[in-house]
């Protein structure tokens, strides 16, 4: 079976008078339907690795394969198109557009992709919100919702274009235990029930333990 994401000998070094190496010697394969947790101390390179896996950043050495396709040498636009159609990001901060309602925020990636008509887009964003228990909040602005609700809207948005890969960077960092548990339950179900690949960074060892596999980073290397 083709790996969903594959990192082969990946390193990322920031250029400068004093070059900073964010991650190095990363060899990682994540299968479809797998839920992987990335753990590690602060500053160990967890976020950096996630950005590389999500084609948001480009490795200085090695390569990232998305669903078997090598992404090395792709243009910025080509990487953006891959992110749009195949990858969903969830960050610690929700990053919802403050002027748009929950449903409109979820609709944005679909409208950008342009594969669905307006009616289908509205239907799908409402379905996604409903599946995350937010049916009655769909018309609210982000500022009218709680932190946990916003984060679930962000997850719905990440799912909008039906991506093969969900990447989450400390999605539960600002949430209470119950909400955090709910988010991780959602991720597990996305992987196991819907066959998506989920990679989530977390500090929380209890949550990490609920994943299929844990990848531990120290000083930019997998240990």
């Amino acid at each position, binding site marked *: 079976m083709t790996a969903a994401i594959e990192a082969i000998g990946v390193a990322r070094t920031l250029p400068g008078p004093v070059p900073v190496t964010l991650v190095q010697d990363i060899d990682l394969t994540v299968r479809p339907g797998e839920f992987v947790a990335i753990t590690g101390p602060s500053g160990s390179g967890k976020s950096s690795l996630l950005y590389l896996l999500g084609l948001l950043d480009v490795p200085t050495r090695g390569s990232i394969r998305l669903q078997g396709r090598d992404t090395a040498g792709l243009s910025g636009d080509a990487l*953006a198109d891959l*992110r749009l159609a195949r990858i969903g*990001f969830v960050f610690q901060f929700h990053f919802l557009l403050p*002027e748009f309602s929950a449903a409109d925020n979820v609709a944005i990636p679909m409208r950008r992709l342009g594969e669905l008509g307006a009616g289908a887009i*509205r239907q799908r964003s409402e379905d996604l919100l409903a599946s995350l228990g937010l049916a009655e909040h769909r018309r609210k602005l982000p500022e009218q919702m709680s932190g946990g609700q916003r984060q679930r809207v962000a997850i719905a948005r990440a799912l909008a274009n039906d991506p093969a890969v969900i990447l989450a*960077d400390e999605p539960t960092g600002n949430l209470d235990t119950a909400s955090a548990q709910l988010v991780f339950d959602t991720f597990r179900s996305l992987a196991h029930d819907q066959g998506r690949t989920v990679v989530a960074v977390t500090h929380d060892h209890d949550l990490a333990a609920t994943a299929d596999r844990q990848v531990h980073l120290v000083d930019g290397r997998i240990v």
Partner: protein
Amino acid sequence: MALPLGLAIAVRHLLHRRRQTVTSLVGVSLGVAFFIGIASMMQGFQRDFVNRIIDAAPHVTIKDEFRKPPPQPVFAAYPDSAVILSGLKPKDEIRGLRGARAIIDALERMPGLHVAPTLAGQILLRFGAKDVSANVTGIVPDRERFVTKLEKDLIVGSLDSLYTAANGLIIGEGIALKAGIGLNDMVSVIAPSGVLMRMKVVGIFRSGITLMDNFDTYALLKKAQVLQNRPNVVNRIRIRLDDVEQAADLARSVEARFGWRTESWQEQSSNILGIFVIQNAIMYSTVGAILIVACFGIFNVISTVIYEKTRDIGILKSMGFREADIRRIFVYEGLMVGILGMLIGWALGYGIVEFMGSLKFEMEGFIRAQGFVLYRTPRHYVISGAMAIAASTFAAWLPARRASRLNPVDIVRGAA
């Protein structure tokens, strides 16, 4: 959901920054409105002036002058050699258009034009204790009426009474007012030749062109020749064309054929037409300056929006928006300010023009007029709109390009 996504985001951004958006809208609107108002006023004035000139003055005038003094024979005898002439004394020729008869005959054979011979000179007009210096033009009324609109401009008297009165004189309204002269008054006329003549005012005209009304008088050609002591001399041939656009061409060809200096109305009014060029330059730079200020406003709003929306830009890019998508959002914002500003400016400009049109007052400059003479044309709307949209797009483009190049990794990392 009907709006395209980029436009929808742009609209929300602008609505969010309402006060700044309104400020830059006001800037663009004022630029557009002022342009329309000023352009309509200035062009109205200029076109009115040109129309009056075309109407009142001959289209082409042949003068008893040469553009270049005739070459000295010695230069012809020794071409390409260094010749110094000193103590040169110009021949004291009798001035005037020699061969005027032949020129008039030749011109009259051409279609679409009217010709009138005249003799122009200076006089001093004395009425009671008042002395007024003036130009006198000797005319043949039967020809003059087809060449200038003197006859139409007469407010009292008639052109034909030049024939019937013993020594008839037609004067401009300005002279009449200055010296307190009325119709049928007798005035003393003294010419530089020393001839003194008692003349009867048989007409007063008002052309609306200040210089003419204040300084011009007309007499019969024969009387003028007597006054100037230049019997049978004609020093100007005036031509009126059915198609005024032909004036410059005709002037050139007449001058080439007969050698006399021949001026089109454009050349005769070149000083004033030159002022118009300067006026227009001032107008364009004033409006340009307003629009530049408006541009700074737009630049400012969009830069501020971009600064505030850095997070949004970060998430949009990580979501899969391309650089061009991001750029488009902010260019749309500038464009919307430009288009909206243009529309408001159009309405405002229309209002300004109509308001100016409703004003009534006496004005005397190059011309005499009641109120503003306004020129209304869609061109002013097109030009001002194009300037507004081009300027606001450019003002938005710069920050938009910067925004599109932001690195999403820096943003999402920083905002965590």
